[in-house]
Structure formats: C-alpha cells, structure tokens
C-alpha cells in the first residue's frame, strides 16, 4: 500500500453524498440569485449568532474548536477533582517546586530510548473518542517507533528544519531538540521567545484565549516541549519557572489523573481553560487537559513513561 492508497483510505472514511443542509443552502441561494427583489436568504450564516464577515463561510471557528478539543487533551471520565483540602499554592511556588524537582532528575543522553504509553480523548460535536498508544522515541524525539499491524516500524524525523517546526515534523513541537540550547534562561525572556516561536511555527493559540495570544502560545509551547522531549534538567526547570511567569496562569489545586494525585498550571480561555498537569509529589509532567468554548474537551495523559534499552522494549 503506497501513500496514494493511504490517502484514498483516509478519504473513503467520509461518506459520499451531499447533505440536506448544503442542498437547502444552494437552492435558497439559487432562488435568491434569480429574484433580486427577494429578501435575503435565510441562510445558516445569517441565522447563527455572532455571524462574521459576509462571504466568509461559517464553520471555521467550530472546526477549530473541534480540532482544539482533539489536540489539546484531557479529562478521562475516571479523573476527578480532589476536594480542596488545602489552599492552592501560589503559582510561583508551584513553579519553583517543579523546577527544583526537575533539577534532581538525572541527565539523559539525546539518543536514549524512552517508552511512553499515552491515553488520549477528545470530545467535539457531541461525540467522544478515546484511544491509547504505545510509542518509543529517543529523548530528542528524532527517531520514533511504534507497532503497526503487529510489526515494529521505525520512523525518522526530518532533520532539515533548523529549529522551528519543520514541514515533516510528526507533532507540532515548536522547537527542535537541537535548538533547545538557544532558549534564554530568564523566565520572562523565555516566555517571550516561546510565544514568538509558537506563533512563527503556526501552532497557533487555543480557541478563546482569554489572556494575550502570546500567553496562550507560550503556555502551549511549554506543554508541547514537556510532553515531547526528555530534556536536560536545567532546561526543564527553566520551563517550569517560565510557567509561573506567564500572565494569567494560576494553580490547579488538586486533580486525580489515572489514580495519581496531581496539581498543575492553568491558563484561562473564554469559556474554558488549558491545564498542564504534574504529579503532586514528583512534579513530573503527567497530562495536558483542555476544555473549550462550546463544550469541546481534549486530553492527553502520559499514563506510563520509562527509559528503556531500545525500540519495542517495554519497561
């Protein structure tokens, strides 16, 4: 099966046929165009609240919401908020604790194989989907392995891109591992730099960002870096400290994720929020959770992560 066959398979997952909605819109518009004196068509566009620029089809926002929900991550039904037994720590204190814990971690060489079991769920358009995957990748994420049809396949990242997300990157990681050393250490400068990189890479900001776009973009960029790489401890520490420096970020006081007592960082969206969840004891990254305007939700939980001797080796 070549790439064209795979594309056909992807297309064929969509049923062939025109929807009643499209047919109605077309017929109404056709009638209008033949009768200039007729009142404006009662199109979906004009009926929807918050209709935007005339001529621009609706849907882009709702698609973005759905995508955002699928991309961003979160809360499995089994997860729940832990009753608040103690007040939330200030965000800077949580950032300092997570940074200190990161500094206690051993350094890992870039070629070290890492096993990850990830659980994902997304809810959009009133349907909820869950999936999980086992993935092996090197710590620098340049090589990846997974089972497909019972066989282990190895895949290599495009090495041509010079730092910013390249055209063949598997995931929207905003910065290549090789370029991590170029990041400034000071939290404020680091946030500004990550916001700039995220915007340039086109990873975009979440739908409904309630703070500044730069804040949301930096928050997402840090989330992507922490979930994609096993980074040098000093850099991991700097990223956590940067989280505490992003305007609008607050502490998630307590949440149970896969049986782990967790806490985390939250940035508000209009009608939702994004959360970067860490284990409350070890402060290691556990999940990214998102709830979006319109009810979309998404979750990515790293259920298990361990250093292993090679691809296909389970801990």
């Amino acid at each position, binding site marked *: 099966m*070549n*790439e064209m066959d795979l*594309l*056909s398979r*992807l*297309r064929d*997952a*969509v049923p062939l046929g*025109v*929807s009643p*909605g*499209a*047919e109605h*819109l*077309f*017929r109404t*518009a*056709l009638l209008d*165009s033949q009768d200039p004196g007729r009142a404006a068509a009662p199109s979906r566009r004009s009926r929807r609240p918050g209709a935007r620029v005339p001529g*621009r*089809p*609706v*849907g*882009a926002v*709702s*698609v*973005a919401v*759905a*995508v*955002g929900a*699928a*991309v961003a991550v979160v809360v499995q039904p089994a997860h729940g908020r832990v009753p608040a037994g103690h007040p939330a720590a200030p965000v800077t204190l949580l950032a300092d604790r997570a940074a200190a814990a990161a500094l206690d971690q051993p350094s890992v060489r870039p070629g070290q194989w890492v096993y990850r079991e990830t659980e*994902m*769920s*997304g809810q*959009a358009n009133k*349907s909820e*989907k*869950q*999936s*999980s*995957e086992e993935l092996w990748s090197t710590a620098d994420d340049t090589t990846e392995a*997974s089972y*497909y049809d019972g*066989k*282990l*396949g*190895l*895949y290599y990242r*495009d090495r041509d891109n010079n730092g910013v997300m*390249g*055209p*063949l*990157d*598997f*995931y929207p990681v905003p910065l290549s591992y090789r370029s991590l050393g170029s990041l400034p250490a000071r939290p404020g400068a680091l946030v500004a730099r990550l916001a700039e990189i995220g915007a340039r890479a*086109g990873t*975009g900001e979440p739908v409904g960002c309630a703070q500044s776009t730069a804040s949301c973009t930096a928050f997402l960029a840090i989330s992507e870096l922490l979930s994609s790489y096993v980074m040098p401890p000093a850099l991991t520490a700097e990223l956590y400290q940067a989280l505490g420096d992003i305007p609008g970020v607050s502490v998630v006081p307590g949440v149970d994720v896969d049986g782990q007592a967790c806490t985390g960082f939250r940035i508000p969206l209009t009608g939702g929020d994004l959360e970067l969840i860490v284990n409350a004891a070890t402060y290691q990254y556990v999940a990214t959770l998102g709830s979006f305007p319109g009810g979309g939700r998404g979750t990515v939980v790293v259920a298990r992560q361990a250093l292993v001797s090679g*691809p*296909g080796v389970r801990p």
Partner: protein
Amino acid sequence: MMRQSRASAETGAADAEVIQLSRHEPEAFEILFRRHAGHIQRYVVRRLGPDAADDLVAETFLLAFRQRDRYDLARADARPWLYGIVTNLIGSHRRAEVRQYRALARTGIDPVTESFTDRVDAAVSAGATSKRLAAALAGLPAAHRDTLLLIAWGDLSYEEAATALGVPVGTVRSRLSRARSRLRRTLGDADPSFTKENQA
C-alpha cells in the same frame, strides 16, 4: 420543448450541455448540483471537516452558477471547474485545515470521521501511519497539498488538476512528485510496512 431538453440533460448530456442549457433555463443548473455535489461535499469534509462543508458546497455551486456564462463549453466535464472553485474557497480556510491534520497527527483521533462513526477502534487502528500521513499533509506547501488532494481525493487526472488550478500540466507533475516524496519520507522511506526485521 424546454422540458424535453431538461429531461434529456438529466439523463445523458455532458456537463457542458447542462451548463449551456442553464444559461437559458437557470433551474437546469440543479442537474449539475445533483451530479457533483456529493463528491464535492466529501472533498470539503475530508479537507475542512463537516462544520464548514455545507456552506462551502453551497457557495461553490452558487459561484459556479454565477460564472456559468464564462464557462468554456468545449470542456465537457465540469469537475475540474468545480474543483477549481472549491479549492480557491478552501484557500481561505488553510489554518483550519492544517489544524485538523495536526489534530489527527497529535492524537490519532480523526476530527473529520469521528462525527460519522462511534467506533473508537477505527480511530485507534488508524495508528501511526495515518498520524504521520496527516502530519505530512499539514506540513506540505499549500499549492502542493492542493495538487495532491485534487488527484488523490478529487479523482482528477493530471490534466484536469492543471485546469482546476490554472497551471501547466508540468507544474502539476512536479508538485505531485514533491508532495508524494515528502509523504513517503514521513511514512518511513516509501514503505509504510517498513519493519525492524526488514532493516536487518
């Protein structure tokens, strides 16, 4: 007389004849809609998701209707014309399209098909290959992606894709070659079934 013409057009006339008829009998344009709207809708849904599709499909055929006087009647098949219009409209949704591919690449959950099926295992079985494919699509230059998908998802020939995009056939061949090459590299050096055993 006119009714007979419509009946004839309905059954076997080429698209160009239908368009010609619609210049005098606008309602005949519905024949073109019934013939092609289903395929255009699937193409839009696959590229942008179901939410945007209804509006874009209707807008495509309305634009075509308004431009029917300029249609080259020497072209019997109207598909390249219609796909050219819808491709231009999709152009204003590039960001949404790319976000969709990235969503699939990131989570393995297809935001397009999830509204058509409740089978979680369908999304899961899509697995790494579909994720990489989606990621590669997201990373393609827009012109290359348009070319590739007009052929792979629109079922257009090279010549028809060239007509749809308003570029020479050689440009289509070149773009397609580059796009396929990128996809192959992303999928594991041309062979999605590439395995560790093969490597040995």
